[in-house]
């Protein structure tokens, strides 16, 4: 086995939703690669398709979603073509999703214990654990996310827990499954900064100790810098820039990435940035060319009609932008 093989590879994934007979093209040829044991970042504004990408990986898209094209290769096998049993196995051991909204991810009328143990039972199906062993695993995971009194938590119902506790329960449930890839959809966004920090550190530790791979989905560049080695910047359903986290942060090349970075509040800066003018385009009628065109300050004429391809910026850093390709993008 090669040392640096990719555990997950998304190739040209396009997904659309049908809402009231209108088709919205939410993901447009998304490519994403997760090397084994690495954590990569997926960053972008809310609504740009990050959550859709995560759900597509596990085959849990809403019923009105259509996968139009693409492959999602896990260890070389296309998840999208897996028969039910194999897909179940992938969900049980391959990848686990940490949900964005902890208040809705737990069943309101079923005890934490039942939810936790059912999940674990299938995650460790091959290991033949007794229910006492599963319970111990759950307690261990709850301890790992620093929840006090895990026994009481196990016997609670979601409505008896605070938002932060619920989020940690969700994380613990996914962690205890010991899956190969962790899909963390904005973990800890709903929590205090200090707790969020703890959770990020925890995930980072896990990557190192358990050789986990992680896709860290976030809208926060700070989190990306702290946790990931590679980053992908997503805008309106396409990945516009990607590569080694350091390199991307050093030389942001896509106008969108540059604008995002300018939005970061700096401790030394004065005042608040102006933000990015405009908003994410309508997905039911996206611009024909680059989707960032209407908001782009560097836009060229051709950007309106043509979709830019990949341009190599540095050895491990690429961008999809005509202006960058022509060297017309210069960060301030």
């Amino acid at each position, binding site marked *: 086995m090669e040392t640096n093989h990719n555990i997950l590879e998304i190739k040209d994934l396009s997904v659309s939703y049908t809402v009231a007979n209108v088709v919205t093209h939410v993901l447009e040829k998304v490519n994403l690669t997760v090397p084994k044991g690495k954590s990569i970042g997926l960053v972008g504004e809310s609504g740009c398709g990050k959550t859709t990408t995560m759900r597509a990986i596990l085959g849990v898209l809403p019923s009105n979603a259509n996968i139009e094209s693409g492959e999602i290769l896990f260890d070389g096998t296309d998840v999208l073509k897996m028969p039910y049993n194999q897909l*179940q196995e992938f969900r049980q051991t391959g990848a686990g999703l940490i*949900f964005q909204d902890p208040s*809705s991810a737990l*069943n309101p009328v079923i005890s934490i214990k039942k939810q936790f143990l059912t999940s674990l039972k299938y995650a460790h199906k091959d290991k033949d654990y007794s229910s006492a062993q599963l319970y111990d695993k759950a307690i261990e995971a709850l301890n790992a996310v620093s929840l006090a009194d895990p026994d009481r938590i196990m016997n609670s119902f979601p409505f008896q827990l605070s938002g932060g506790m619920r989020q940690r329960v969700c994380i613990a449930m996914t962690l205890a*499954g010991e899956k190969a890839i962790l899909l963390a959809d904005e973990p800890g966004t709903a929590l205090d900064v200090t707790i969020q920090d703890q959770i990020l550190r925890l995930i980072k530790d896990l990557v190192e100790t358990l050789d986990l791979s992680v896709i860290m989905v976030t809208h926060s560049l700070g989190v990306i810098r702290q946790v990931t080695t590679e980053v992908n910047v997503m805008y309106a359903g396409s990945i516009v820039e990607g590569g080694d986290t350091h390199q991307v942060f050093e030389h942001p090349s896509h106008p969108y990435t540059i604008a995002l970075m300018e939005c970061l509040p700096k401790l030394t800066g004065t005042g608040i940035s102006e933000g990015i003018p405009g908003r994410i385009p309508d997905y039911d009628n996206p611009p024909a060319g680059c989707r960032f065109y209407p908001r782009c300050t560097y836009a060229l004429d051709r950007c309106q009609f043509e979709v830019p391809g990949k341009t190599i910026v540095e050895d491990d850093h690429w961008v999809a932008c005509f202006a960058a390709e022509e060297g017309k993008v210069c960060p301030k």
Partner: protein
Amino acid sequence: MLLFKSITRRLASSIVVLLGLTVVIFALMKAVPGDPARLALGPNAPEEVLEHYREVNHLNEPLPVQYFYWLSNAVQGDFGISSYTQRAVSQDIKDFAPATIELVIWAGIPPLFIALFLGVISAQHRNKWPDYLTRFLGYVFVATPTFVFAVLFVLIFGYWLPVMPTIGGRLSPQFAITPVTGLYILDALIGGQPAAAWDAFLHLLFPALALSLGKTMQEARITRSSMLQNAGKDYITMVTSQGVPRKIVNRQFLLKPSVIPTITVMGMDFASLFGNAFLVERIFNWPGLSSYGMNAILNKDSNAVIAVVLIIGMAFVGTSIVVDIVAMILDPRMRQARTR
């Protein structure tokens, strides 16, 4: 403990409501035009007899006083004499109640499970033929008044495809059942008469269907939409994404939250069976409390009407308490919720 406390509270407020109900219905029956003594004793009774009747029944007293006489008797289980059957109302009720109880149980409980089953099937086969069929029948059956069901059943199953005993009643004359519980099917089985039990079942089937079909399909529809709504929730996606098999997800994680909101509706439906039974019992000649009540209403037999309405009110309120308890058992949030 909380459960117990909230139930006692419900019971206490129900008693107030039921007392209010007796006042309303009492006032209503006293508004019946005509002389109650004359109604009770017939057109040929001499004046002295009428006066004696009025004296004994406190009919010369003011209305509130009459009410308290009535109430103090009613508390002891004495509802007076029915002017229609000329028997004690309490005795009539004892004789007629089992038939209605048997009918309501069969029209209320098995259809509930059928409704859940159909709702689940319909949701799982969304926009395929089982779903279309369930929804189509749902719309049509909900729009069909109970008495129309009853009449159509008599025509279709009584005459056209004669599977139903057209004379009505609870049992064909060649059978005799020793009453134990008053529920014929059960009694026949206890008495070791399977043929009689089958006959009783055939008598019961169509009234029970007429009574329950509309509600069943409506409950199926509610279950369906509740299931579909919940199927898209994050907590279902969560367990699915963990690799929990679809069957387990549906059975253990989807059904429960989807059924809870329909429980209340189902309880109300069950209770309203007592109302629709008025028509069904009449059309199928079912010798129950409701057809007794119906006759009492049409004959302005006030003692009987008040008693029947009160008993139905008690059954109604009792059902809603049971429903609350079931909902509390199923939904942990309600156990904790403050009772207002």
